[in-house]
């Protein structure tokens, strides 16, 4: 008995030790900066030039005494929940729409959802604005009277547009999950006489619950903490939102970091509470759908099904309209002349791409930052998601909770935390004042995207049955082998997702860029914002369109090479992944790891 006790203790210690690096990463990137900010709620003078530990609860009390903050909290909750709810419906529809579409159509649909995912919020917001407002593009095209679109600029309109912005989180989580569910269970149900409807509501959808909730929870956190989008769509409505209160606290002189920290803590607490509910729900049962019996689903109809058509309409509405508006605007000479024939020109593009000009410099700097941050986030995200999903230690649970809570933190607040944390006095003697360097900026970028990466990965990994690993281990596979041959092929799509999510996010991330960029080297988003601030909207739009084009080209190239590379490897060596799939699909056929194409599986005889 004693031996086994020791043994289990040893296992527990070892589990804690192996997951400790994750905690260190989280501590450096997220905990320490946030702590540096939040501690000012009670010690407002800690980061004054003359450090003072004078305790003061006043800023904290102010947060709760101001009735405007309560209203703002409620508004943010309603808008976040509303947007998450509709986004979940839309994302589920499009995920099934993609699943049931012919091959090329599926690629096209997924690509378009990707585009929405990539698109920086302000581009979409700006696009809707140019399109919908009085005197906007639609009004010019159809001669609509001023005020025709007042219904659009309401809280309800905001919720709908916001859900069109955030549904890709649900879509991406769901497509992978649907692919992983396979048709064994539904096939069995059909054999037992269940109807289509019944199978969908009783089997398919419940099995997809983890992915659904992972997507929905991110959509909620996004909508709840949103500032830019609401501010752009509804500037005249003035719905006080929690994020607006935070922004105001940071933009008034004297800047009130204590109040901003107090409000952010509120934001984080509410998000954490909502997400904790989600976890309680998920804990009640197992959602593992991937077992050794799972076959990649093969269903690919020749013709467009109605749900696919609906999906296409949705994605085009979500990205097509605002993008067309933004691209149009980038080609206008004068804003006031709008779509008049004489007003079109490519001047703004040639100016943006001038050799040695600001535009090109900022673009290349941001591409470098984005590349580094994306690779780091992709790797860290996967490793940490693995530990959270399969690690049983207290540490991995802590990491889990922390990553969720931090999704709600507005970029501006995290960025401010980075200034305090990495410019602190105590770092001076050990030469670790990272603030003002590229390292600090990239750390903030990674910190901002890591929680998303981890959440997306967890969504995919929750479905992997632990039996798969046990089986592999019993057969003598090492950890590395298990990861390479079982896990990676199963989460490949989400790995690619996290790379591009981070890459694009960084390319257009404004708050951290603006607070943390090394003096003298403004990155792309700062330059774009400066153009918008200087009323050179067409220039700003042109830079944005250029940035998005680059992302798309890189995405296309990346997919092309990955597909080719992996295909060759599979042919040449009958790679380990193929070995696993031998067990999986009984056919041992080579497959493509990085494409969304269905695995070419032969039916079992």
């Amino acid at each position, binding site marked *: 008995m004693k031996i086994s006790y020791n043994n289990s203790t040893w296992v527990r210690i070892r589990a804690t030790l192996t997951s400790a690096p994750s905690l260190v990463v989280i501590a450096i990137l997220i905990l320490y900066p946030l702590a540096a900010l939040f501690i000012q709620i009670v010690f407002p003078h800690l*980061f*004054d*030039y003359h*450090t003072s530990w004078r305790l003061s609860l006043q800023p904290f009390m102010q947060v709760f005494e101001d009735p*405007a903050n309560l209203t703002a909290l409620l508004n943010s909750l309603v808008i976040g929940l509303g947007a998450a709810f509709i986004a979940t419906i839309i994302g589920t529809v499009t995920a099934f729409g993609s699943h049931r579409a012919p091959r090329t159509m599926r690629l096209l649909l997924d690509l378009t959802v990707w585009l929405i995912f990539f698109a920086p919020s302000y581009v979409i917001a700006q696009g809707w604005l140019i399109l919908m*407002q*009085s*005197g*906007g593009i639609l009004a010019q095209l159809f001669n609509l009277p*001023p005020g025709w679109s007042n219904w659009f600029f309401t809280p309800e309109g905001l919720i709908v547009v916001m859900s069109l912005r955030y549904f890709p989180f649900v879509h991406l989580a769901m497509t992978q999950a649907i692919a992983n569910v396979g048709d064994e269970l539904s096939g069995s149900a059909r054999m037992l006489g269940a109807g289509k409807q019944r199978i969908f509501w009783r089997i398919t959808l419940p099995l997809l619950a983890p992915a659904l909730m992972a997507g929905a929870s991110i959509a909620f956190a996004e909508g709840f903490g949103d500032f830019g989008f609401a*501010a752009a769509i509804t*500037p*005249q409505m*003035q719905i*006080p939102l929690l994020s607006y209160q935070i*922004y*105001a606290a*940071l*933009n*008034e*002189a*004297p*800047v009130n*970091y204590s109040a901003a920290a107090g409000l952010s803590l509120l934001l984080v607490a509410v998000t954490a509470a909502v997400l904790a509910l989600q976890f309680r729900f998920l804990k009640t049962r197992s959602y593992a759908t991937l077992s050794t019996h799972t076959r990649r689903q093969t269903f690919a109809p020749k013709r467009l099904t109605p749900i696919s058509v609906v999906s296409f309409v949705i994605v085009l509405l979500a990205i097509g309209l605002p993008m067309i508006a933004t691209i149009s605007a980038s080609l206008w000479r*004068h*804003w*006031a002349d*709008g779509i008049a024939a004489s007003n079109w020109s490519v001047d703004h593009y040639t100016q943006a791409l001038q050799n040695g000009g600001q535009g090109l410099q900022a673009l290349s700097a941001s591409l470098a930052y984005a590349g580094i941050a994306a690779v780091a986030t992709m790797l860290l995200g996967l490793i940490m998601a693995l530990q959270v999903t399969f690690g049983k230690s207290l540490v991995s649970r802590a990491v889990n909770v922390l990553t969720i809570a931090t999704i709600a933190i507005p970029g501006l607040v995290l960025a*401010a935390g980075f*200034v*305090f944390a990495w*410019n*602190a*006095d105590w770092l*001076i003697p050990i030469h670790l*004042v990272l*603030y*003002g360097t590229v390292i600090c900026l990239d750390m903030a970028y990674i910190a901002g995207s890591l929680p998303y990466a981890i959440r997306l990965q967890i969504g995919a990994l929750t479905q992997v049955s632990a039996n798969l690993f046990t089986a592999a281990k019993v057969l003598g596979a090492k950890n590395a082998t298990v990861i390479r041959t079982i896990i990676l092929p199963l989460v490949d799509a989400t790995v690619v997702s996290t790379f591009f999510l981070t890459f694009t996010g960084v390319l257009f991330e404004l708050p951290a860029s*603006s*607070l943390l*960029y*090394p*003096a*003298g*080297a*403004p990155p792309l988003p*700062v330059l774009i*914002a*400066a153009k*918008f*601030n*200087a*009323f050179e*909207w067409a220039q700003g739009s042109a830079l944005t369109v250029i940035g998005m084009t680059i992302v798309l080209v890189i995405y296309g190239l990346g997919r092309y090479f990955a597909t080719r590379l992996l295909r060759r490897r599979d042919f040449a060596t009958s790679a380990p992944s193929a070995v696993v799939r031998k067990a999986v699909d009984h056919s041992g056929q080579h497959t493509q790891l990085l494409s969304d194409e269905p695995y070419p599986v032969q039916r079992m005889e």
Partner: protein
Amino acid sequence: MAQAFQKKTGIVVSLVDDSTGNIVARMEAERSNPHWDVAWFDGDSTMQTLDNQGMLLRGFTPADMRNYTPLGLSLLPKDHAYFPTGITAAAAIAYNTRLVPQKNAPTSWQSLLSPYFKNSVAMNNPAISGPTYPFVAGIIQQMGAKRGEAYFKNLKANGLKVFPTNGVTLQALEEGQVKAIMIQDSALTKAKVSGEPIKLVYPKSGVYMLPGVLAIDSHAPDMAAAKAFAAFVLSPQGQRIMTNPKNGGGDSYFNPIIKGIRPDSARPQAGIHWVRVNAVSAARQFNSIQNWFHENIVQ
């Protein structure tokens, strides 16, 4: 400007070019271990709040102080914590000439209360846009608290729209969402020069003076370079670079306060009645006016 300074002195300038709000947020976050040497933006009341916290170098007198015009000297605070570099109007009125014929053009702040401008006037939110606070504080100082507040309430009753920043407000004017707006005149001048269909109106009762101000960090990492830069900005050579829109864009359309320097010709000069806003009391009333505006006008 930074490039010209670099050329002249060989001192390398690393620039953070951003909106006033972001710059101040950054300066405040850095305050335990400041990285900046010189700060420069529009708004002496905002700078005054930084001075009140002891963040600015006091008592420095650049070599060519005598270059200041009498107006320039009068804008200099007693403690020399910051130096005025030029003036603009915190707000002037601009109207869209495609929507408003000459005969209906506004002539005073009060014109915007008429039924003709119902639901078609916009301004910025002073909590977000730097130059807007001095405008609100100016109206309240000139008209008195009661009448000043009433003015904004009447504007609101007439359907005033409050947008976050210059960019959005100007866009609303050009797209025809509104007929007239009240924002900083240098921004309006720039839009007019670039060919947009707008006209500027300087109300006879006066416009509120908004000095651009430059300050040196009290704990500047490179104090000598900071002082050299301040002197360069106030020198005729520096001023000539600043007033050329090719160098400064919209920021070049200011009225100089250095002897012998002419403003850009695009800037209207005749018949403008300048009203000074007291920076010290505007800084003191900052929170109360901001809160009042947020609760009564914005929401």
